[in-house]
């Protein structure tokens, strides 16, 4: 009997969340998510603490609820479907509601406009070219994560924030602990504390010796009494983590996905058309959807949607990974097709919390995907797909290592 009961299907028939991906399908969301999506737009899941929040699996309902002002992202509210027993907000405005969220967010949006991001493109191209030069001159095979995928966005976000890249081992290691699902609350709090202390020290330095970076701008607000120094440090932590870990995973996992779809890789390598490159980025964002732990919210009022009533205080989990595979929004959704129009995907979320760094992420990925495979045309996996360590235990999905040869 027991072998027929997987951990995803407990006795009550309500699946546990998060769920497991199927063996041999590293790019697809867990099959249980697809089953739930077929049952209806709103079902229920069971969390680690026994609570049973709503699971919203379809694209239209996910967008509607994520953009609904009656839905809160405030982790301290009762009913919020927390990932662990820690309910304190140590990561800042992504777990707050408006108007406080909007006030803080607008303090850091300026460097992420389309214009400012485009102005950074030559610098990112230089970073990418230099790292490829180093790889070509170094040992073969190499781990693409360590030699390329992590350094590219880390160098870029360090420049933008004003964080010394020399400290990358420190902030990358602590980020890893924070986003690992298996970290204990103590481990996570420790890593967050170390990063907050580090950013606080940098904000202090920028108060004394400001330069042209974002931390200096935050420090100026601290100096003007508009922003508590601790909040400035928290914002710095958030942007530092979000700025390198996500894009790094998209670079490595995207490369692996393309290596498994050689005809798509060839099309991307041979094109001179920036529109096709941009389209490929959108499709890879949709298809891979690396933030695979579900957006989490709590209802502030009763909300009628899809023939159901979500009660005030009910928790909501909105896994955009399965929303991006909803056949109602994308035809043949499980196929990677860089030629499709995927621009309406929800890889960056939806609503007021949608990723503020998305123009930067897009530009970085456009530079990477249009350069790496052209300059390393014989790039291939050094080893078997089965041996690749996937981040099943991360709140952000990807690969821990990607051995490649050329």
């Amino acid at each position, binding site marked *: 009997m027991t072998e027929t009961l997987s951990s995803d299907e407990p006795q009550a028939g309500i699946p546990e969340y998060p769920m497991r991906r199927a063996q041999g399908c590293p790019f697809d969301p867990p099959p249980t998510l697809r089953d739930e999506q077929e049952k209806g737009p709103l079902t229920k899941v069971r969390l680690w603490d026994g609570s049973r929040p709503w699971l919203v699996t379809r694209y239209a309902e996910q967008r509607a609820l*994520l*953009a609904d002002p009656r839905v809160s992202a405030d982790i301290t509210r009762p009913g919020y479907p927390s990932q662990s027993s820690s309910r304190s907000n140590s990561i800042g405005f992504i777990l707050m509601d408006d108007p406080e969220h*909007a006030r803080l*967010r*607008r*303090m850091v*949006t*300026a460097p*992420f*406009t*389309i*214009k400012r*991001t485009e102005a950074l493109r030559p610098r990112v191209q230089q970073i990418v070219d230099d790292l490829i030069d180093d790889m070509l001159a170094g040992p073969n095979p190499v781990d693409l994560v360590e030699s390329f995928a992590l350094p590219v966005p880390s160098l870029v976000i360090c420049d933008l924030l004003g964080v010394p890249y020399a400290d990358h081992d420190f902030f990358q290691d602590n980020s890893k602990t924070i986003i690992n699902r298996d970290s204990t609350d103590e481990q996570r709090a420790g890593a967050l504390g170390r990063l907050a202390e580090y950013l606080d020290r940098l904000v202090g330095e920028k108060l004394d010796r400001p330069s042209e970076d974002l931390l200096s701008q935050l420090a100026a607000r601290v100096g003007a009494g508009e922003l508590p120094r601790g909040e400035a440090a928290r914002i710095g932590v958030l942007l530092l983590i979000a700025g390198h870990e996500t894009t790094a995973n998209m670079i490595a996992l995207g490369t692996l996905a393309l290596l498994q779809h050689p005809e798509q890789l060839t099309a991307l390598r041979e094109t001179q058309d920036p529109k096709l490159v941009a389209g490929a980025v959108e499709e890879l964002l949709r298809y891979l959807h690396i933030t695979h732990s579900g957006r989490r919210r709590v209802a502030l009022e009763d909300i009628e949607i899809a023939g159901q009533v979500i009660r005030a205080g009910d928790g909501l989990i909105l896994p955009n990974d399965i929303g991006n595979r909803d056949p109602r929004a994308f035809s043949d959704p499980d196929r990677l097709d860089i030629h499709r129009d995927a*621009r*309406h995907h929800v890889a*960056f*979320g*939806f*609503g*007021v*919390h*949608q*990723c*503020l760094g*998305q*123009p930067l992420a897009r530009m970085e990925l456009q530079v990477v995907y249009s350069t790496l495979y052209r300059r390393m045309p014989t790039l291939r996996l050094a080893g078997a797909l089965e041996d690749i360590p996937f981040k099943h235990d991360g709140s952000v999905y990807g690969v821990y290592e990607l051995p490649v040869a050329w």
Partner: protein
Amino acid sequence: MKVILDQDKCVASGQCVMAAPEVFDQRDEDGVAILLNDSPSEAGTEDVQHAASVCPALAIRLSA
């Protein structure tokens, strides 16, 4: 077609600028969207409709 933009709702995602750069731009100081042309030509209709549909803050409304 008339375009109505609610700057208070805008979260500076830049999606509208990507979709319809001849109709939308962003303020330098905080990335909040600005309207360059509130009555775009027929040729631009599809882009503007796309901009409205991908705006995460539902800050863009279109009227006939």
